[in-house]
């Protein structure tokens, strides 16, 4: 059977190079040569990524089976001792719980607000670009700066928030936002939602802009209510982009550190301590290096499950 993929020999090449009689040299085809060139070009980048990404991962895994603490550098194999400790570490599970609460509240809030803002700015209007640029400013701030700034805004004596509330209420409002257990979560969530809703807004604005206008017009002509138009036409169209935005923000919220650190440092007590803050305290203040590595792998395992499930649900991974 004639091999269609094989090109006719090039008469300009020597006989040996043309695969002539008695030779065993295989001449790479053009496609193979291109493929090798591509691999050669991206190989350094992949090597660097593996070094930066994979090496620390493997090293952390090894460390998680050792017993490296502030006082002892015991690198002998300790079995699953650190992982067993995870199960009885109440503070760890509480930190995960706090993180889950922040994620469960902030993520839908940012999504809904971001979508609402995106709808507002969908149509052309005077100064639209300027307003969008201003709306995006919080996202540009460093999260630790955002947390520290909001701490000043929430200051019970000199902060403007209590002043504004007292003007509205007509009476002094000495709310100690970051100490009172009833207000500390709202304080953190306000800061978090204020900073990252513009991110959702930007992504969803782009997604909404790409919805097929002819379908929308057709639905409008048919007298479809807004709700039906949104759930039947708009949402399916923007779902892939929205899903990615949800995934990115969800992962960011699970890693939440800066804003909480700037506002409360995990306090009062450990009431707002997220998993990142707890890990930081263990690893960098108490130098429980091996146990911290075990916690890191617990979080990696949980995130892997979440991401895999999410991607399957979103039908993005094929």
């Amino acid at each position: 059977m004639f091999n269609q993929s094989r090109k006719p020999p090039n008469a300009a090449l020597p006989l040996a190079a043309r695969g002539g009689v008695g030779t065993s040299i295989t001449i790479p085809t053009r496609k193979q040569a291109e493929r090798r060139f591509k691999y050669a070009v991206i190989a350094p980048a992949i090597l660097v990524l593996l070094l930066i990404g994979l090496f620390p991962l493997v090293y952390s895994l090894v460390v998680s089976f050792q017993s490296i603490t502030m006082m002892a550098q015991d690198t002998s194999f300790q079995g699953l001792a650190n992982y067993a400790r995870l199960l009885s570490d109440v503070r760890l599970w509480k930190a995960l719980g706090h993180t889950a609460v922040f994620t469960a509240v902030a993520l839908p809030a940012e999504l809904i607000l971001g979508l609402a803002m995106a709808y507002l700015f969908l149509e052309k209007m005077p100064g639209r670009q300027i307003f969008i640029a201003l709306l995006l400013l919080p996202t540009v701030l460093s999260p630790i700066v955002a947390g520290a700034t909001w701490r000043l805004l929430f200051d019970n004596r000199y902060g403007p928030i209590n002043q504004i509330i007292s003007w509205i209420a007509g009476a002094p409002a000495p709310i100690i936002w970051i100490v009172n257990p009833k207000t500390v979560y709202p304080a953190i969530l306000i800061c978090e939602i204020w900073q990252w809703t513009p991110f959702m807004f930007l992504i969803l604005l782009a997604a909404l802009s790409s919805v097929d206008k002819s379908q929308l017009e057709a639905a409008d002509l048919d007298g479809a209510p807004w709700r039906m138009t949104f759930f039947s036409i708009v949402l399916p169209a923007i779902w892939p982009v929205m899903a990615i935005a949800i995934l990115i923000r969800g992962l960011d919220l699970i890693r939440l550190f800066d804003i909480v650190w700037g506002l409360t440092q995990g306090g009062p007590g450990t009431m707002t301590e997220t998993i990142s803050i707890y890990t930081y305290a263990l690893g960098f203040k108490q130098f429980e290096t091996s146990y911290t590595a075990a916690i890191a792998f617990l979080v990696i395992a949980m995130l892997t499950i979440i991401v895999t499930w999410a991607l399957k649900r979103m039908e993005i991974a094929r």
Partner: protein
Amino acid sequence: MRRLHKLILIASAAAVAAVYTSAAFAESAAERAVKEAQKYKGTTINIVWEAGLQSLDPLNFSGPKWEQLTGIHVNVVEVPAGEMFTKILQDYRGGAGGYDALNVVPSWMPDLAAAGALEVLDPYVDKYGYREELQDIAPTYRDNQMTVDGKIYGFPDDGDVFVLYYRKDIFDDQANKDAFKTKFGYELAPPKTWKQFEEIGQFLTDKYAPKMYGASFFRNPDYTQFMFQERFRNEGGKFFDADTMKATVNSDIGVKVLTQMRDENKFMPPGVETFGFVENLAAFLSGQSAMTISWPPYGRWAAGYGQDEKALNWVPKSQIAGKVGYALPPGGHPELALGFALSVSSTSKHKDAAYLFIQWLNSKDVSIERVQLPYALRDPFRVEHYTSAEYLSRWPDAKDYLATLKLGSETGLLDLSIIQTDKYEEALRQAISALWSGEDPKSILDKVAASWDATTQQVGIEKQKKVYQSWAAKSGAYPK
């Protein structure tokens, strides 16, 4: 004859050597440090220093002066206090040798020394003849903040101690004195007990609020946990059962102290739970509180000392200069909270140069200048600092101020210092922040005790017991 001649020659040589040696050591420790350091001209040494006001000393005064004298450049690495321990240990663990000299909180010394991060200084002390001048450091700091297991790891360089500052004019007001005596049956005077403190505080708040409150404190957990340590021990509390190493911080005494601390907020300015060092300073200097407890700089700044310094332009102008009295906090045994010692990193590549710098800084000649710097936070720590004619002339009440600091250093209580001290202190910090959020004191302290017991188990009960017993045996561990 030849034998006699020989003897005379030997005796003469010995005499010359003795004179030469004594002449060499007649120079001060500071002079000796400068002379020896000139061999290292052109070197740069990195010193870790607390960020903010503390580091103005090496940045503006001691660093430039040292470079002028020796040709050694001092690079000040400013680090927030809460991160100093981490950075020092990280640098050691990484073997980077990025730091040469260190500022170390004395309670960290056992951990850092055990980890191998600190250089043993005894050989250098003997080599450069500093042992004699070390004896002039005030005994409490010298005997408790310099050594671990008998070896010198740092030179105490900051006489931190809690002082009660109070408004003399308010306390001396005859109307206040009469009304107070009528109500409580004793003279209005700086409180000797926490019960008196509460009564005086409430009395003054009832009379003067909202213009002025009876008292204000910094309430941030980082510093307030030292206040708990002080008050707990003044009330008779013990941190651990010395035999079993079970934490006893959740005893009735601990609950009483935490409850009192919480209840005091009622007669303090609203929002006192969020007061840090600066907020409390502002409240006191502006006349908003009649009593406060804090470190020595409050006393200097309340007197108006250094108010014209550019570096202090963030400090509110004192409205109470000349009106401030000084006393020991209730209980009579103030916490020697924090403090700093100068050390050398064990991974330094310039150990001798680093050592000579810290000897010079800590010496009699130089330290007296440094503790008088208006913008610096270093407090008197040598015996002669408390009686220095120059210091006594700085402001009218400086005599009372220095006398109180001296008394505080003699009766003061050491910060708890055992293996992994920061873990135990972390539990206390969380306890304080939980207290302000309204959690029950007993429940808070039960959690502290459980956390302490878990830490002790991790460290090793017998190992920690040995270190704790050694610490508890010190004169400043518990009130005598």
